[in-house]
């Protein structure tokens, strides 16, 4: 055996040994991404038209000068086409459904129309107008589509008044607007599936799932009266929800309606207000919720998080003699944003460690409560890159949007108006 042979043999053996024992665990992730990706049409590749041996066969002789010029011109055109295609390919990449992503354009609603908002200048551009009163736009997790709600006129924001709404889906650029539900009573709290193909929503405390392309909504039965439906990361096989009874709890049910609900392993509720405002961590391992104590004055709520597997709970250490309410997880799951509530009235937004170890950071200014106590008039969420909060202060009647950077950079003011909601597109990093 020659030295070269021995070297080649050892090289092959080392490669086989070093490449072995790798058990990829990301097939499901690949399939989620691919399922959300549209295939290219068969005619879009020149290889489909030109035989490979023709396109790659070397020329046996020199071309005449005019031919050379033509060839150079064709090559330049080909290079330009490849460059355009390459840029297009990059734009086609999709962000993961959970985790950090790059910030994209904003979308906002106010006074019945949907607008795209430049993330730097905050300049608005009408995206979806028309006669209907459109509001609450939310990007799909892959950032390619939008869902929003539509009413014939301005919906009543008075509690107890029935509202008839239609759920509408559009492409992220405002094209392809189509209704995905019939006119539905009290349609509420919707959430995109991880693969961005379906939307779960509530109507009259019942759970429905509808394809984003439209079609008959499927009622997921056996949930019991419910609210806060949220697809459980990472695969979205189950939907988490709060059982809305006087003995509430957090349950999970197969998203395709194929099985029974199961109650997550957790403490018995303190009272009928327990397990409010649930938020699922991006890795699906924890669920945060708001708990109201019994017989205390003032009745300040606190937030907790429960381990989905072990059922162990932890609270969030914060400023003493204050309450906490409403949780939003950062995209990477390491931080949470919630409202710190003062017993004398007023609240402010706070960001802290998601494991409950504190490190509270106040974001934005302290504001007065809408009423006395813990009634707060704000919505908030992290930006896709986790560096800022998107906040709406105010009520459905009149609200104003803000981007509040966590590093103390200047606040960006967004629009104001009725039913003001803002969301930001996730882009691949």
């Amino acid at each position: 055996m020659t030295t070269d042979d021995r070297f080649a043999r050892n090289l092959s053996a080392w490669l086989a040994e070093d490449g072995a024992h790798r058990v990829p665990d990301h097939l499901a992730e690949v399939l989620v991404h691919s399922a959300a990706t549209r295939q290219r049409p068969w005619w879009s590749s020149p290889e489909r038209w030109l035989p490979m041996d023709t396109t790659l066969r070397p020329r046996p002789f020199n071309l005449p000068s005019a031919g050379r010029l033509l060839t150079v011109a064709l090559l330049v055109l080909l290079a330009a086409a490849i460059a355009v295609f390459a840029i297009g390919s990059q734009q086609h990449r999709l962000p993961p459904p959970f985790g950090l992503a790059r910030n994209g354009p904003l979308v906002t609603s106010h006074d019945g129309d949907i607008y795209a908002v430049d993330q730097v200048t905050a300049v608005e551009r009408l995206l979806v107008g028309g006669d209907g009163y459109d509001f609450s736009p939310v990007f799909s997790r892959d950032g390619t589509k939008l869902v929003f709600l539509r009413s014939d006129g301005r919906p009543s924001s008075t509690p107890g008044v029935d509202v008839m709404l239609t759920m509408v889906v559009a492409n992220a650029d405002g094209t392809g607007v189509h209704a995905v539900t019939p006119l539905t009573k009290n349609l509420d709290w919707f959430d995109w599936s991880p693969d961005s193909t379906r939307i779960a929503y509530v109507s009259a405390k019942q759970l429905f799932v509808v394809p984003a392309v439209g079609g008959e909504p499927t009622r997921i039965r056996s949930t019991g009266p419910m609210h806060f439906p949220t697809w459980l990361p990472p695969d979205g096989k189950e939907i988490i929800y709060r059982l809305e009874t006087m003995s509430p709890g957090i349950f999970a049910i197969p998203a395709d309606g194929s099985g029974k609900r199961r109650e997550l392993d957790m403490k018995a509720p303190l009272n009928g207000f327990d397990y409010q405002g649930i938020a699922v961590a991006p890795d699906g391992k924890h669920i945060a919720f708001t708990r109201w104590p019994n017989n205390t004055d003032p009745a300040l709520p606190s937030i907790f998080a429960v381990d989905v597997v072990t059922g162990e709970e932890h609270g969030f250490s914060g400023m003493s003699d204050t309450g906490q309410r409403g949780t939003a997880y950062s995209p990477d799951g390491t931080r949470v944003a919630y409202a710190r509530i003062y017993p004398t009235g007023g609240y402010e937004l706070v960001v802290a460690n998601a494991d409950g170890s504190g490190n509270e950071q106040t974001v934005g200014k302290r504001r007065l409560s809408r009423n006395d106590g813990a009634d707060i008039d704000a919505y908030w969420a992290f930006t896709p890159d986790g560096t800022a909060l998107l906040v709406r202060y105010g009520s459905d009647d009149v609200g104003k949007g803000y981007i509040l950077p966590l590093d103390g950079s200047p606040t960006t003011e967004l629009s104001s108006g009725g039913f003001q909601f803002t969301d930001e597109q996730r882009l691949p990093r």
Partner: protein
Amino acid sequence: MQRDLVERARQGDHDAFAELAGAAISRLDSAAWLILRDSEQAKDAVQNALVRAWRDLPTLRDPDRFDAWLHRLVVRACIDEARRLRRHRVDVELTEIHAPAVGGVESSIADRDQIERGFLRLEPEQRAVIVLHHYLDLPLPAVAATLGIPLGTAKSRLHYALVRMRSALDADAQMQPDLVEGRPS
């Protein structure tokens, strides 16, 4: 069987694609790891390649070339990934080798340790040609077709990769008495 799956996947059958991807992902993941030597980068490269494979499958002219085409996508994704996140790697622990052993298990272990060090000094493009030929056992014409390069280029790229590895090993062998343990700077 595979041809049928490819045909179905080309026509938009995602279940068929899932079967193809499931059968290939282990092999692709190993190849990507060998080229990139970074689990996360390898995972990203394989994911990008498979999603791109799904997207571009309708444009694949010959279903029988699916495997070669998939290898090509993965190798390209690996090279893109390596270029995107090129960084200086210093994570090779040098183990103590007192004397050049001759023959037997010790010799083999020493050889493999040296091979790893030599391999790590190659550019991703050179690693790719070695992985395709020596790990996936593709003959050189198939390596050339997979990489989209002429056969002569594939031959010379493999030759120079091996020469470079051996040169690195020779240089290491001369330095061994002074390098008992530690990290290369």
